[in-house]
C-alpha cells in the first residue's frame, strides 16, 4: 500500500501554515501525528495534493495547567497525556481515554488535536472532552476563537473549522476538588475502536451532584452528549439508584448502528452497563476527592 504523490511542507510558523492552506484550498491537508491520515493515504482513500506537517511549528505541544484549565496543545502526543501525573490525578477520564486509544505505539505519535480534528465518531477523545466540557482554540489569520467541543464537532469527520483555520489548543476546565471523571471503553481487542465507550465527569457539592458531563463514543454519527442523563443527575445524590437511572438515560441517547461490533440492541444495552460503570467510578473518585 503506497500513498499517492503529494507535495510536502513543514512550515515553522502558523502564518506560514495558514498561507499554505489559503493557497491550496481543498487540496491541502494538515498532518499532525498521521496515525489516521497516513493509513488512509496508503489506501489512497485520502489523496491530498499538499501535506502540511505541523511538527516544526513551536508551541503546539503544550501540556500544562493554567489559570483554571488544562491546556493541551494540538500536537501533544497521546503518550504524553498517558504519562502525565497531573492528567492522571486530576483529569483521570482523559488519562483513561488516552491510554485506550489504538495501541501504545500508535499513541507515541498520535496527537490529541489530530484525534479531535479527524472527528471520527469512533475516536475516544471527543466523548471524554464533551464530558469534561472542554473547548478548543481555532486560529486563523483573522485571529483566534474558542468554541466548545459540542460546537466543534459537526458530523462524521466534519468539524466547525473553516478551511484556513487550525486547531491549536484544547482547554479543559480544571475540576474542583470534589470532582471525578472516568472513561470506560469496551473494545473487541487492543487497537480496535470501541464497541461502545462512555466518558463521565461528576462534580459534587457536599453530597449532591453539582455538575455532570456524559459523552458517548462510536454510538452515532459523532460523539454524543447524553444531555438528559446529565440534567437528571444535577442536584441529586450519587446513589446507586440515581446512577442507574442516569445510565439508562445515557444509553437512550445512543444512536448505534449494527455492524461487525454487534447489533444495535447489544450496543445500546452495553452502553447502559458501561455508563453505569463510568458513573460509579467517577462518583467514587469525586467522593474520594471530597474526603
Amino acid at each position, binding site marked *: 500500500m503506497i500513498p499517492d504523490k503529494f507535495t510536502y511542507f513543514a512550515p515553522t510558523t502558523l502564518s506560514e501554515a495558514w498561507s499554505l492552506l489559503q493557497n491550496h484550498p481543498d487540496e491541502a491537508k494538515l498532518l499532525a501525528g*498521521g496515525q489516521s491520515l497516513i493509513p488512509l493515504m496508503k489506501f489512497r482513500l485520502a489523496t491530498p495534493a499538499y501535506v502540511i506537517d505541523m511538527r516544526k511549528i513551536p508551541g503546539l505541544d503544550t501540556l500544562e495547567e493554567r489559570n483554571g484549565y488544562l491546556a493541551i496543545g494540538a500536537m501533544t502526543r497521546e503518550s504524553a497525556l498517558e504519562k502525565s501525573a497531573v492528567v492522571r490525578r486530576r483529569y483521570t477520564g482523559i488519562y483513561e481515554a488516552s491510554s485506550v486509544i*489504538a495501541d501504545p505505539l*500508535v499513541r507515541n505519535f498520535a496527537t490529541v488535536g489530530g484525534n479531535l480534528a479527524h472527528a471520527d465518531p469512533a475516536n475516544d477523545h471527543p466523548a471524554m472532552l464533551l464530558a469534561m466540557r472542554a473547548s478548543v482554540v481555532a486560529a486563523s489569520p483573522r485571529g483566534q476563537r474558542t468554541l466548545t467541543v459540542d460546537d466543534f464537532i459537526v458530523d462524521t469527520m466534519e468539524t466547525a473549522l473553516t478551511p484556513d483555520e487550525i486547531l491549536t489548543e484544547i482547554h479543559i476546565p480544571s475540576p474542583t476538588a470534589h470532582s471525578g471523571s472516568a472513561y470506560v471503553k469496551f473494545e473487541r481487542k487492543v487497537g480496535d475502536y470501541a464497541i461502545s465507550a462512555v466518558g463521565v465527569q461528576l462534580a459534587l457539592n457536599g453530597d449532591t451532584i453539582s455538575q455532570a458531563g456524559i459523552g458517548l463514543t462510536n454510538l452515532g454519527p459523532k460523539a454524543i452528549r447524553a444531555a438528559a442523563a446529565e440534567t437528571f443527575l444535577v442536584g441529586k445524590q450519587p446513589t446507586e439508584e440515581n446512577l442507574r437511572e442516569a445510565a439508562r438515560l445515557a444509553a437512550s441517547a445512543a444512536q448505534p448502528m449494527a455492524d461487525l461490533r454487534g447489533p444495535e440492541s447489544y450496543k445500546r444495552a452495553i452502553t447502559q452497563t458501561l455508563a453505569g460503570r463510568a458513573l460509579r467510578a467517577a462518583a467514587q473518585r469525586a467522593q474520594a476527592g471530597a474526603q
Partner: protein
Amino acid sequence: MTQHVKLTINGQAYEADIEPRLLLVHFIREVANLTGTHIGCDTTSCGACTVQVNGVPAKSCTLFAVQVEGDEIRTVEGLEVGGKLSPIQEGFFQEHGLQCGYCTPGMMMTAEAFLRENPHPTDDEIRRAISGNLCRCTGYVNIVKAIQYAAKAQHEPETAPTAPAEVTP
C-alpha cells in the same frame, strides 16, 4: 518531485533525494538497505515495522521519511553493540522468544524502549507495552519471559552464555 532528507540510523548519517511519500520503513529497507525492519500490514496494526525515533518506538510504516528529517532512528541492527548482544536480544534468545523471527525486530525495539521507562515491569505491564506488536507464532508467553530476562539482565550485566555469533550465509 523529490526532496532532500538527512537522517541518522543507528548512528550513521543517511542522505537521499526522496519523494515525500516515501514511507520511513521503505527508506530504512530500500535506501539504507537495513532489512531487519519488516512490513506486516497496511493499517498500523501489526508493529513488524517498529523502530525507535529519538528513542521512542514508532511504526515506521505510518511515518513519511520526510517527517523524521534530522531525527535519530534506531533499528534492530543497532541493538548489538561491540559484537555483544543487548540484553533484550539475549532475552529473546535465552527464553525462546521468537520462532519465525518476522515480528521479532519490531517486538524488541518496542521492548527495549519500554524497559528504559519501566526497568522492573510486571508481566501484565509487559503485555500491555507490546500490545501494538502482533506475533502469530509464540503466543507471547516466551516474549514476556524474554523481556523479563532482559529487565533482570540490565541490572546484572554478566549473564549466561550468549547467542552464537552471526554466521554469514
